[in-house]
């Protein structure tokens, strides 16, 4: 028996740091009802991730209200689909979908890149072309799953677009440069750089 294991809510140790930071975050709705959550579980009852994995939307809200910062480093937060179903039904205006967005940003700000490193290509494509693309890391898997018709069509994409009377896929060079400029100043390029460095480091480990 270990008396230290007993969970005690100590006086003076409590704050609303995590909750407040989520409420104030730009990614959440202005009037998000995090504090009004009564743990009714309606979110979970309609949540696809909760239906098919260990993830439980209600539990996320509970842990936030308990100021459980370990949530930021918990892999479970990466199971949300961002389908906003919880957001659209919550009787008190809470949004676990938005909470998760903030938690994942916190993970990234803390340089936890493991979960997003494979999506780097989208950002790179946006900087290069001004439009996003399917993450290249998954391309071969995609072909494997979908079949060979897929890369064939992709090869013919320009041709097909022309046949459909559509313009070029890419933005004019000048505009791509502007976008790069803007994204440099918003700090996005820095973020990508860090993720690239992380990618390099895990590649060299392997």
């Amino acid at each position, binding site marked *: 028996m270990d008396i230290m294991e007993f969970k005690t809510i100590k006086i003076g140790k409590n704050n609303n740091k995590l909750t407040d930071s989520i409420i104030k975050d730009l990614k959440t709705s202005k009037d998000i009802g995090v504090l009004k959550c009564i743990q009714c579980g309606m979110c979970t009852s309609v949540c*696809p991730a909760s239906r098919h994995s260990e993830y439980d939307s209600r539990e996320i809200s509970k842990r936030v209200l308990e100021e459980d910062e370990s949530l930021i480093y918990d892999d479970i937060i990466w199971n949300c689909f961002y389908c906003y179903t919880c957001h659209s039904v919550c009787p008190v205006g809470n949004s676990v979908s938005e909470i998760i967005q903030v938690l994942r940003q916190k993970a990234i700000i803390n340089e936890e890149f493991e979960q997003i490193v494979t999506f780097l290509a989208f950002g790179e494509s946006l900087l290069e072309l001004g439009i996003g693309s399917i993450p290249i890391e998954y391309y071969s*898997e995609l072909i494997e799953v*979908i079949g060979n018709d897929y890369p064939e069509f992709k090869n013919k994409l320009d041709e097909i677009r022309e046949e459909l009377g559509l313009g070029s896929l890419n933005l004019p060079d000048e505009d791509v440069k502007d976008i790069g400029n803007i994204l440099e100043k918003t700090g996005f390029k820095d973020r990508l750089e860090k993720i690239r460095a992380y990618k390099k480091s895990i590649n060299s480990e392997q």
Partner: protein
Amino acid sequence: MKKIPDKDILIFKSCLISGEYPGVESSTKYLFDKLGVEYVVEDRQSCCTGLGYYYDLFDQYSTTALAARNFAIAREIGHKNIATMCSTCYAILKKSCNILNENDKVRNKINQIFKDSKLDNLIYSPGDMDSEGNIFHVAEVLWSKKAEIKDLPMIDLSELKIATHHACHYFKVHYKEDSIGNKRNPLLLDDLANACGTETIGWYDHKKTTCGAGFRQRYANLDLSLSVTADKLMSLKENDVDTLLHMCPNCQMQFDRYQPVIEKNLNTKFNLAHLNIAQFLALAMGADPYKVVGIQTHTVSPDKVLEKIKQASPVAV
């Protein structure tokens, strides 16, 4: 009910439509031309960042800054009524517009970036765009033309068994604002299908469930992703649906590209084709399935629809 414009429209290009289902864009243009909707497509318009945003790669500042840039371009070319073909573009642009209008700190910071980059033409002032008054989904523009659509000659597609998949980011994100119809039972696509003389099955189990793409889930968590898609496909199968109507390329991709995989996994057949609402309407109006609707980029061929079209006008196919 919000006022939906039929001129000064910028068809907002989407990455996934451009790269996966370009036929949605050509079908949209085909319909707008037929319905007398005045629009442009603009080279300089960039991606909304939506997929990156929901891969968690993009922070809100960067996304909002690029939205401000696209808004400035729309205003500059005199087409500030944005119509998106993708529901994520729709949600992302609305959110960014609201931030730019309401959050002085963010707006000033972004404007400062523009000034520092000598892009003063992009500077955003509060009210330059209105989330409710300037940002729409193409399906909404079409919906506002229901009466006109009804009056056009149509190929009889009434024998199809149709269901609708309303994209989550259209009706769940900004539910308080202005997405059309009952947010708890969206019927926007059903209304449009009815406008060309076809019935839909209406409600079905999982009607409101996500396609299962889940952004990162489709790639990083394929099993989880496909089990959600399978829920929906099974329910559609139970209802003998042969055509599912879409309003978002991400959903369409999830169903169209992965349906054969799920069929293999579950050892079943769904006999279900996937069409964007614009593609469906264009086909019903007699558009060329390949040269306009672009079905050659689909993984699941909409055979039943093609058959009906063939019956109606053997020359067309």
